């Protein structure tokens, strides 16, 4: 049962929240904005198209979309979205993080496969920023494991579903993971998802040479990644109930929409940073996580 529902939610809902972000940004800018389901229309359109391959490219370019989507879907199975995760075991947080890394590995190689400077530029930045954001991510994991005593996502997010008293640790961790979410999904202060100016972009730069079904799969993959990291961030403040009930689906919709609105708001009011500042910001985020660790340790003593 959990298997089926969780897979269905994971497969179908992610593009919707991208629509929510776009809508929020539009309303900040005083526009009407695209329909909420625009991303589904885009994906359907892309899935009906052929593609153009570069003569420089190899099987890496052709396999990468499937790798990206499958790693993210698998990672999603470890997350307690609606009740307990379909698969959970001690240490699945590490597997979760490394599955995301495998997707990134495939993406970077696919970008380098076409032999162009633009893709190389995007790939180089993605690789470097990915390494820096891993610092805060793993430190955050330590904090969570120390607090909850469990190294499994299902074990970590197992508070009673009213929402844990908003302890300072969780606020700090939420801030850190929210920023990781923005960085990993190439959102605003790090990267601008709406621009197509090659010299400044990261994620969009890497996928310049993709088209048709492959591009559709990659965009779909990014939507799932956003969905999963939103899940991570919001579950810190307000975890999903561990026993499946119909209202957990409604709660999921509500909370994730709230997160999407928050991301849209952040994107509307911040400007993109200069690239050279991004690692500094990621390190600052690491420091925030460090504070969370200290707070958690002091809390443990008491």
């Amino acid at each position: 049962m959990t298997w089926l529902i969780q897979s269905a939610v994971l497969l179908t809902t992610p593009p919707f929240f991208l629509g929510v972000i776009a809508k929020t940004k539009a309303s900040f800018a005083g526009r009407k904005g695209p329909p909420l389901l625009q991303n589904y229309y885009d994906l359907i359109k892309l899935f009906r198209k052929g593609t153009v391959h570069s003569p420089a490219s190899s099987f890496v370019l052709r396999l990468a979309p499937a790798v990206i989507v499958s790693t993210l879907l698998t990672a999603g199975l470890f997350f307690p979205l609606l009740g307990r995760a379909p698969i959970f075991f001690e240490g699945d947080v590490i597997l979760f993080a490394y599955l995301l890394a495998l997707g990134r590995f495939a993406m970077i190689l696919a970008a380098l496969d076409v032999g162009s400077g633009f893709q190389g530029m995007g790939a180089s930045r993605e690789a470097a920023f990915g390494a820096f954001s891993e610092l805060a991510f793993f430190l955050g994991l330590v904090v969570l494991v120390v607090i909850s005593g469990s190294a499994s996502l299902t074990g970590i997010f197992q508070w009673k579903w009213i929402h844990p008293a908003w302890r300072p640790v969780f606020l700090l961790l939420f801030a850190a993971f929210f920023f990781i979410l923005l960085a990993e999904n190439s959102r605003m202060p790090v990267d601008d998802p709406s621009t197509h100016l090659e010299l400044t972009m990261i994620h969009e730069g890497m996928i310049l040479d993709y088209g048709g079904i492959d591009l559709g799969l990659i965009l779909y993959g990014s939507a799932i990644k956003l969905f999963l990291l939103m899940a991570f961030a919001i579950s810190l403040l307000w975890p999903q109930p561990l026993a499946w009930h119909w209202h957990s689906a409604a709660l999921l919709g509500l909370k994730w929409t709230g997160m999407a609105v928050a991301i849209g708001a952040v994107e509307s009011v911040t400007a993109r940073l200069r690239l050279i500042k991004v690692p500094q910001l990621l390190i600052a985020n690491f420091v925030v996580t460090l504070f969370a660790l200290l707070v958690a340790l002091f809390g443990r003593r008491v």
Partner: protein
Amino acid sequence: MVLFVFSTILFLLASLLSLISRREKWKRLLGCGGVVAASLTGLVPAVLLLAGGDPVEMTLGSPIPSLTLRLGLDALSAFFLVPIFGLSALVGLYALGYLKGEGRWLGNLPFFPLLVVSMAGVVTARNGFLFLMFWEIMSLTSYFLVTTEHEQREVRHAGWIYLAATHLATAFLLVFFVLIFKKTGSFDFKDFALLKSGPWTGLLFIFALVGFGTKAGIFPFHIWLPHAHPAAPSYISALMSGVMIKTGIYGILRTLTLLPPPPLWCGEALILFGIASAVLGVLYALMQHDLKKLLAYHSVENIGIIVTGLGLGMVGRSQQNLAVEWLGFGGALFHVLNHAVFKGLLFLGAGNILRATHTKSIDRLGGLIRFMPLTGITFLVASAAICGLPPFNGFISEWLLYLGLLEAAKTSARFPLFLCVSAMVGIAFAGGLAVVCFTKVFGVAFLGNPRTEHAKPLEAKWKQLAPMIFLATACLTLGIMPQLILPWLQTTLLSIGSNASPLATGHPLVNLGIFSRAFAILIALFLLVHWIRSLLFSSRTVRIAPTWDCGFKGPTPRMQYTASSFAEPIRTFFHVLLKPAVSARNPEGLFPDKSHFEEHVDDLSERLWFSPLVDKIASFLSGLRKRQRTRVQDYLAYIFVTLILLLLVGVWIGI
């Protein structure tokens, strides 16, 4: 044990026959084929023992009354013998193809079987004296193999550095064993247990750490690796990096488990060295343009991960935390095996590239996967494995280690907690940087378009590819079915006196079988998505057209990102630490003539510690040489003063 002795004899025969045979073909066949046959023979007793056999010992004889030379085979030896013999057999097969038509390299081939047999000797010796003998044979044979291309100046230089470093290590080990001998009156490993715990243990630990650490390549004693590996022929690099440096790890494990339980700070020091090696190793690897030098630095990184695991195991043992002990030692041992598999594979792949393109510089390569598909695919598998990505074997050992660190973080406080958190973050960061590094290597060398016009590179022959395919399959098998290795780890841990056994059977912490399920889902999903994609594409048009380049028609290979540009964000961030030396000439004027850009990064420990140290020693010695007069009386005086000094040391300090 009979088979083990038989395999030793085969190795010696292979070396001898390859030395005396005249024909090139026979030399190669006997040398490499002998290694394959002997290694396979030697593999049998090791595997049998790990599968549940009893430890065996045998006495070689007593050359002098107080010294009995003994060899023994227990689970720890067997666990190291499996990669030694396994990788040697594969490397032997590879060398059979690799050395074809390389007559000038065959002169040093007889040392190849000797190197393997001396490594086997190191891990089976049960006596300090014998151990050092094998250790020295191993160092010397590998020195001769490193300097195979001794007509080149750099190779001789690299060989010289290696020889100096390895003897420095031996010197420390000599002191280590002599100290124990003075305390216990025996060189025998069995008698080490007689040693009382005390301030001596810490001192012994430091000697062991420097001695074994130099061989293993722990930062800051690693400086010989980035010199020796690029200089050696690729099959030797594979062997040295895959298994020879692991003898250092074996040494640490063996001695530290024989000696009385060392104080807590020893384990903590190991973790600190491990973190430093892991992070700095990969950081320096990222800055390299020479493929084999890059791989050598990655050995430093992986040794760092292993050493962190050892340290964690020791901390767990000091604190009597069985789970931490198991996960630390278990992760380290598993990583030893895994590193042999993927690093061996990477060096063999580097050998194929070198043979096909005649350059080690990554920036001159590109698009190789079209010409060498099998080398490319196996190299890709090994790259993913060394980054610790699922579903390959590197992930499992790192996962064990992470789990151990988290477990330790849950229960410890103060300094150990700080170490756990640093190790966790350090290894994660090293993993992130390894992804940068190997996407760089694979992306720049194998993908895109060739950067220089060279003759079409040819794929290697089957004798070279077959071992690589085997190793790549091993990467995947060990990743998907890690539970196969679990009994081996268990037996090995029991043999080093760990009583953390109940964990292996059914404890939720070490439920490795779950990975078969998780990775089966991953692979099934991948195949499904890919199948849907192909299905959709079958009814769509797919055109081939040049890479889109901003409306500019006709991008050239020179416009591709190079390895240096790829690593630029990291280098810029760490420039204070790395201090890259750049020599560049920008294009100037309306008709710019030649411009160039070159940069390289010097090693921190070489720059700040070893270079100045060696310079100081050299100037001191040259000053001494000026005073030297060729009179017998002076020499007698020197000898006299030395003897007096030694006597005083003996009387006062009692060593």
